[in-house]
């Protein structure tokens, strides 16, 4: 019977087997896929998984050499495939988050929809966080060495692409890919624009009117809604005090639709999982 009690037993059992690295990787993968921002890179876990994959690949060769029966070999192959799928998917989701929106950048500089269509045509994913990642130390530290390198190279490529196609042709003040104009003081998240009154009036008839929009560096949207499940009962202390009005407790194993920023802290502390 699927009673409450047997459900509880299943959970304990799940806890027990959750100690395998595959289970941990699956959890990391699920969290990474569901979270709107990039999470801490699980470096030692990935390292261990890679070693186990290598070992399994070596074993496969040994099996072949020793004429182990094909059924057994194929089962080992399936296990290997499943683990590799998880690892690849995990790394790929992270890369997608790292890469930034070259497409969108280009759209805005001259407000050209043509360019937008063109880039969509190339199949470029509109991915947003690259500049943001590079600008924020906290985010940068979440990336692996390879991801950091990848992010740098992407930024450079995108930067030079924008330079060549658009920015170099603009007046000096508008050439940054981080600021919309020299007159915007904060270059990333700043949205106060203390530009001169006349500059704005001028913009009325200017083709560059998009340049007086707010920030060029998009941040991950922490107000995205996610689905999560607490591994244990959570009290108000487990959440950021800032959100004490929004969220006061969370029952164990209860599926909860919630704003990501409310549960960011317990997620980082490993107390909840995203589903």
């Amino acid at each position: 019977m699927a009673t409450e009690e047997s459900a509880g037993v299943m959970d304990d059992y799940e806890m027990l087997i959750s100690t395998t690295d595959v289970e941990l990787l699956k959890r990391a993968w699920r969290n990474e896929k569901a979270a709107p921002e990039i999470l801490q890179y699980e470096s030692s876990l990935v390292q261990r998984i890679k070693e186990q994959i290598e070992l399994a690949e070596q074993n496969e060769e040994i099996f072949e050499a020793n004429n182990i029966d094909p059924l057994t070999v194929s089962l080992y192959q399936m296990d290997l495939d499943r683990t590799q799928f998880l690892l690849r998917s995990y790394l790929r989701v992270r890369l997608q988050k790292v890469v930034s929106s070259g497409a969108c950048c280009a759209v805005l500089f001259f407000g050209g929809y043509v360019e937008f269509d063109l880039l969509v045509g190339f199949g470029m994913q509109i991915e947003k966080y690259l500049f943001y990642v590079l600008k924020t130390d906290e985010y940068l530290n979440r990336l692996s060495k390879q991801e950091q390198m990848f992010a740098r190279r992407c930024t450079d490529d995108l930067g030079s692409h924008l330079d060549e196609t658009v920015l170099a042709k603009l007046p000096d003040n508008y050439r940054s890919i981080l600021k919309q104009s020299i007159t915007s003081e904060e270059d990333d998240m700043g949205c106060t624009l203390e530009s001169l009154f006349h500059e704005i009036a001028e913009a009325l008839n200017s083709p560059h009117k998009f340049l007086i929009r707010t920030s060029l560096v998009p941040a991950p949207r922490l107000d995205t809604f996610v689905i999560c499940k607490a591994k244990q009962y959570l009290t108000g202390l487990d959440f950021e005090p800032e959100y004490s009005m929004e969220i006061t407790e969370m029952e164990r194993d209860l599926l909860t639709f919630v704003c990501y920023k409310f549960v960011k802290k317990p997620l980082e502390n490993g107390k909840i999982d995203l589903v």
Partner: protein
Amino acid sequence: MAGQTDSTMTLFSSEEIEFMAEDEMAEIVPNLRMDSLNFICGDYGPFLPQLAAQVPLWLALALKKRGKCTIRLPQWMSVENLTRVLEAERDSHAFQPLPFHYVEISRLLFDHAREDIPDMYMVRSLIEDIRDVRFHKVETNLEKFTASTVTWKNMSAMEVNVIRAFAGRALQAFYKHDNEQETPDTDRTPNKQPQIPTDRPKRNLKPR
């Protein structure tokens, strides 16, 4: 906020949900002798003919497809239990407890292990009925929510996944409308004492 999420990237496909379900445990009765399997995902076996063993569903299905075992129907998939669950689902607003992956597990078994399921057609139609009743409930619940944190007891993986995109967006809109119509939030500083009742409505809904 308009069009903010490139939702396809973060969503789980049904196939990915199925992939997770394949890690759930199943009981098999092998008809062959096979040494222990020391997988990356754990150790299983040794396997002896006629001796029941616990293995992940994917392994059970792989052996089944090669004719090396029969799969024992999980308890919750018995006609008696499903009949009871269906009745309870119809009688109550709450979701009855079923395995988190019941939709996927049952589909995998119907597809690959039909001869191991006594009363296959009965079982399948019961599960379909249960799923329909529950999906209808999900929809009714969706119509009701107006708060920015919503909890659901015993909702399954696939049910949640089907409404993820819609509910996520709708909740985000509610949250935004709720917050934007307030005057600037000067009172919401981090050192404010928690738990002080205010006139602001509590958002946590009771589990359904």
